[in-house]
């Protein structure tokens, strides 16, 4: 359905506001938070209200019906994919706010230790959520660029939020340089696409490309350049260099958010660009065989991520490389250019959110207690106290799920990705083979952490920094682990929802 055929699908500015209320509400809550900070209301109150605000936004969103329309004269899409991504975003923000509350780097304890500003931090988190939604629902190249920059600018600040910390500062510096270059290259590519097609709207670009009969080198270059910006958001080769440094240097809750939120938004953008603009009915219309390019990038990305992760000693850095590898796995779903490919990408994002948040939350809880992040310091963790034993068991669940072993959710996610690739026939078997080999490699470094926790003895005694019982953190961790297990055994309902999303498109 193109929008020229159906005028009713195109809503004007005033009509569109009805469908944009949740985002406006979220922006309004940002102002509320800043005003509360201005009025010197207790920071604990502000922090406690933040999950409530997200809950209200979520409820408002559930009251809106799901239609397939274009908002604001075609700038934004409002469809099932977008609506479910909004739910995803609110859940991500909710979990991140709770994670931030349980981390000593970003809760009210940090205000006394290094001048942490909770209201500004919450503003950044909520802002990142709005940016994610705008990026995932964009239907116009200008909106895409604005959303990418919006996300990037907030991420730079959030990364450097521990502004007296050298690592955090260095991370944000590297992020700002890589990000500036990547988005610069992306708009240079967009400018050529605009010059060829004469429009910035996805639909018009798509219909222009449909009529394009032959291979066109300008189109190739511009898609390559646009991929530079996209690949930087989802951290694939060769735009992955910022990822380990930023993940290591940023406060851990920010790392958790960056590794899930903007990445997921980037994948939704990839789905929209490659499945709706650069292809029609799952047929590549650009004459550059982009599925093959994505497949090659996918193989290189996961291989590099996994091979470099083997040598890492810092757990956050290891998880950064593992997240690069996972971006490679998800790209397999995009390269398979089929309806199962779309579904598997979406399913994997949900599963990835659960297990990645879980793994980072364990890092947070241990670093709260002992102030350490090295794998070396995790030796013998499981046998220190029953509480730490419990944490170690949950960490094992997340790590095995990240590897993709049954009966955990990661296995189901990978199963769908692989079946999407296998479905394409023998010409794609090499991609599936590369994925399987990489999963085996990844087992090595994930198992190294498990081995350190259970089978090795601590070499040196680590001093206890903060012995508080972390009720909230442990509770979220248990919930995340529960869902990681549940979706490994009973994933039907989630997959059914994902099926309905694409059935309605």
């Amino acid at each position, binding site marked *: 359905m193109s929008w020229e055929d159906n005028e009713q699908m195109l809503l004007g500015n005033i009509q569109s506001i009805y469908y944009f209320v949740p985002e406006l509400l979220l922006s309004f809550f940002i102002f509320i938070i800043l005003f509360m900070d201005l009025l010197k209301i207790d920071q604990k109150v502000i922090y406690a209200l933040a999950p409530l605000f997200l809950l209200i936004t979520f409820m408002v969103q559930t009251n809106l019906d799901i239609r397939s329309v274009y908002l604001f004269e075609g700038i934004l899409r409002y469809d099932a994919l977008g609506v479910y991504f909004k739910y995803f975003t609110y859940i991500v923000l909710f979990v991140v706010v709770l994670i931030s509350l349980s981390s000593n780097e970003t809760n009210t304890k940090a205000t006394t230790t290094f001048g942490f500003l909770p209201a500004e931090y919450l503003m950044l988190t909520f802002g990142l959520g709005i940016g994610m939604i705008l990026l995932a629902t964009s239907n116009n190249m200008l909106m895409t660029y*604005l959303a990418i920059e919006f996300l990037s600018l907030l991420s*730079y600040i959030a990364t450097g939020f521990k502004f007296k910390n050298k690592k955090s500062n260095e991370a*944000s*510096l590297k992020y700002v340089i890589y990000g500036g270059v990547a988005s610069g290259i992306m708009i240079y590519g967009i400018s050529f696409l605009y010059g060829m097609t004469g429009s910035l709207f996805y639909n018009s670009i798509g219909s222009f490309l449909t009529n394009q009969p032959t291979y066109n080198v300008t189109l190739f270059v511009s898609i390559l350049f646009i991929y530079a910006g996209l690949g930087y958001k989802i951290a694939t080769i060769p735009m992955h260099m910022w990822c380990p440094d930023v993940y290591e240097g940023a406060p851990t809750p920010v790392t958790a958010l960056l590794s899930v939120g903007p990445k997921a938004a980037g994948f939704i953008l990839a789905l929209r660009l490659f499945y709706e603009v650069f292809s029609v009915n799952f047929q590549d219309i650009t004459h550059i065989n982009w599925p093959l390019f994505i497949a090659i990038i996918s193989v290189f990305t996961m291989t590099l991520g996994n091979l470099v992760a083997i040598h890492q000693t810092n757990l956050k850095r290891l998880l950064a490389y593992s997240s690069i590898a996972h971006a490679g796995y998800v790209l397999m779903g995009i390269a398979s250019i089929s309806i199962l490919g779309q579904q598997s990408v979406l399913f994997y994002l949900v599963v990835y959110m659960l297990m990645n948040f879980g793994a980072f939350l364990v890092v947070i809880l241990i670093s709260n207690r002992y102030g350490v992040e090295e794998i070396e310091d995790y030796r013998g963790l499981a046998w220190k106290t029953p509480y730490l034993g419990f944490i170690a068991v949950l960490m094992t669940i997340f790590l095995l799920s990240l590897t993709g072993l049954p009966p955990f959710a990661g296995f189901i996610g990978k199963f769908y990705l692989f079946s999407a690739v296998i479905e394409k026939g023998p010409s794609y078997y090499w991609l599936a083979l590369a994925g399987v080999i990489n999963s085996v490699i990844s087992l090595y470094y994930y198992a190294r952490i498990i081995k350190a926790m259970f089978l090795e003895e601590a070499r040196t005694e680590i001093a206890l920094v903060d012995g508080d019982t972390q009720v909230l953190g442990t509770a979220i961790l248990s919930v995340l682990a529960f869902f990681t297990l549940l979706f490994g055994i009973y994933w039907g309902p989630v997959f059914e929802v994902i099926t309905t999303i694409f059935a309605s498109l």
Partner: protein
Amino acid sequence: MIKLETFLIVSAILFSLGIYIIIARKNVIAILMGVELILNAASLNFVAFNKYSVPTSFSGQMFSVFIIVLAACEAVVAFAIVMSMYKNFKDINADSATTMKE
């Protein structure tokens, strides 16, 4: 009448210079200037394409105005980060920020 190709060549030169500066210079401020050059190259492209490909619409000019605005935003954030880098490292050389290594 200047042809479209002239604009595209100028913008390609600007783009290449920007990439060269980013690779060659070590001073963070200089690197950020390289990024600005890339943004300007894209901006010039948009205006030129707007005039020659779609003279009836303003979308390209609008895009270039947005690029200018966002370049300013990015400069604000980037220079704030550079300032705090100067406080932490007493230096704004990109090579000196190496607390994290492979």
